[in-house]
């Protein structure tokens, strides 16, 4: 009953005509952002944060708007996967495996509606799971001291590096880059500048928004200049869109199982939505066996990764809200949003700012329903938007990024820094170095160092203190296992390659 009372509180916060309007706008915008190739949830949400911030919305409204964009982008990612065989973001890669073949069979409309329903089921179940699990985990989190928090942040970097990338050394190096950048600025305890090289602009530190927008959005422009915007035309025509009841009923168990698998994957700090959709697809493939025909365009192959992906996105909110550790690139961006709004995630969030948390959860539910209602009848409009040519889209995205960052600080220095991060992002992605750990490092660096410093102060500089409690030891073991195990599992769990024509 506690949950229902809390949920009522959440809806009382989130369900006003104005916030509903924001939710509809956010969902619409988010679906477009997710659908446009080269603009995924991470960079979509990233370029909108500074703008949402300068609009002067209050915390709840800004949260409703941005979570709608977030969920919308998760929905939208499937449109370009299915029609163009181009995943809008990494988790959507699994959807191309069966979605594109299905579209080539002339069932593009069915695939789109089915994946929309699967997304809805996954996201809905994950939100319910979030409501049940998060308050419990928040209570556990009260036992966390500085040693445990330090180990937890380490776990996030290790699992992210271990599972989400192909080369552990590169992922760890990326995390170090982020952490190293986070150290720049005035030190909180001594009040003296650190690692600024005497540059006055760096005394404030480097704003994570500058880094996020640079690494995600500006870097994309360079990729498009390299490819000259090829591959942004419509691949498959869309005919009449009907609701394929038969397919939906036939895949109901697949959706439920995939949602469960995705949610678990999402909860793991650092693993996130890519792992969720991957595991959901692979487990359904092995359940269906050879006769299932996965990879040839079967409805189950479309429903499983979409349900898993959206459910993992919800699951990733559990560690983000209760412990302040995001589970994926997009949740890292959402964490950046919360920090911009001066909301610090953590166990106390659930007791001290119950209205914000439950308002957020209520807005997730609202966004989900809005998206389902919007996606089935309006899918044709979103498909039209896919045909916006790259030579308008990318300059537009760049200019919006510049305006967003400029409106935050009004300083040319941040803009130059953003261009620098764009170049860095291009080089890193070319060299197969993941950029999400960089963002996570910048976001969590300060907190991780705080935890370490507190632990060292409490123990009078004794490093053994870091391994002094069962929780801390467990987290250290999990961190090392999460970093090392994928090296051995890589040969067994091979990522399926995208379908080629």
């Amino acid at each position: 009953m506690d949950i229902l009372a809390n949920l009522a509180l959440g809806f009382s916060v989130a369900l006003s005509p104005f916030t509903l309007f924001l939710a509809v706008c956010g969902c619409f915008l988010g679906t477009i952002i997710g659908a446009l190739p080269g603009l995924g949830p991470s960079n979509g949400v990233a370029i909108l944060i500074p703008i949402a911030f300068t609009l002067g919305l209050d915390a709840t409204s800004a949260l409703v708007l941005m979570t709608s964009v977030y969920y919308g982008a998760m929905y939208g990612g499937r449109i370009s996967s299915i029609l163009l065989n181009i995943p809008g973001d990494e988790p959507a890669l699994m959807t191309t495996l069966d979605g594109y073949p299905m579209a080539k069979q002339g069932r593009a409309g069915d695939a789109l509606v089915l994946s929309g329903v699967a997304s809805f089921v996954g996201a809905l179940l994950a939100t319910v799971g979030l409501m049940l699990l998060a308050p419990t985990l928040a209570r556990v989190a009260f036992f966390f001291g500085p040693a445990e928090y330090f180990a937890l942040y380490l776990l996030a970097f290790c699992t992210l590096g271990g599972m989400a990338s192909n080369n552990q050394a590169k992922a760890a190096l990326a995390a170090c880059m982020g952490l190293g950048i986070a150290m720049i600025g005035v030190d909180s305890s001594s009040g003296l500048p650190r690692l600024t090289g005497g540059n006055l602009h760096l005394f404030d530190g480097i704003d994570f928004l500058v880094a996020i927008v640079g690494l995600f959005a500006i870097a994309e422009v360079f990729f498009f200049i390299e490819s000259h915007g090829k591959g942004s035309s419509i691949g498959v025509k869309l005919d009449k869109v009907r609701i394929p009841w038969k397919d939906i009923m036939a895949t109901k168990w697949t959706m439920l199982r995939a949602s469960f698998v995705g949610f678990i994957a999402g909860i793991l700090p650092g693993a996130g939505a890519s792992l969720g959709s991957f595991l959901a697809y692979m487990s359904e493939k092995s359940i269906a066996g050879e006769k299932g025909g996965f990879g040839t365009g079967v409805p189950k192959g479309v429903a499983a990764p979409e349900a898993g992906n959206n459910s993992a996105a919800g699951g990733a909110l559990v560690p983000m809200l209760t412990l302040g550790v995001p589970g994926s690139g997009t949740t890292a961006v959402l964490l950046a949003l919360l920090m911009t709004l001066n909301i610090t995630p953590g166990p106390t969030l659930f007791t001290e700012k119950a209205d914000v948390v439950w308002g957020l959860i209520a807005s997730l539910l609202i966004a989900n329903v809005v998206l389902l209602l919007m996606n089935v009848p309006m899918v044709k409009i979103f498909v039209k938007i896919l045909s916006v040519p790259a030579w308008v889209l990318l300059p537009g995205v760049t200019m919006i990024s510049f305006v967003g960052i400029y409106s935050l600080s009004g300083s040319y220095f941040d803009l130059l820094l953003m261009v620098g991060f764009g170049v860095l992002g291009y080089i890193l992605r070319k060299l197969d170095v993941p950029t999400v750990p960089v963002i996570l490092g910048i976001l969590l660096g300060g907190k991780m160092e705080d935890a370490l410093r507190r632990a060292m102060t409490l123990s009078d500089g004794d490093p053994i203190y870091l391994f002094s409690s069962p929780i801390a030891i467990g987290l250290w073991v999990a961190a090392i296992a999460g970093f090392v195990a994928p090296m051995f599992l890589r040969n067994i769990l091979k990522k399926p390659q995208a379908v080629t024509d």
Partner: protein
Amino acid sequence: MASDRIFGLVCLITAVAYIAAATQIQTNLFSGEFLPKLFPLMIGGVAALCSLTIMFRPDPDPDWPVGRTWAAMGVAVLVLCVYAVMITPLGFILPTAFAAGILSYQISPNVKPAIFAGIGLSLGLFVLFKFALGLGNIVAYKVPTAAKLWDALTILIPFVGH
């Protein structure tokens, strides 16, 4: 192979420089002698280790773009940098039209659509930001003095600007 070795070497040098800088961090009575340096030193150490690993166990080379594409990307970076320093002295519309137009031309080399994209994006985004979203610090245009323009450009020249 070669790219990863170069990348590892660059990162290793950066990491060593970072460690050197970290040992020079100023401390005082409140922070203690060691704590402000501890975490940066740890980061530098791990980064150096990773760089060595990348140098000695490199991945296959990615498909690097050819010379002309590099030049195009260099131009794009230059345009974005000039845009970043010009938006304050010249206002929004003129620099945006140029920057968006050039970027558009680089993605798809057709002159007319690029001009159209530049002017359209600049005016459209200005109306959107100024009137629909009400962002305060964007100004349509400014007429700068030559000295101010030069001041802004010197930011981009190393050791001359501020």
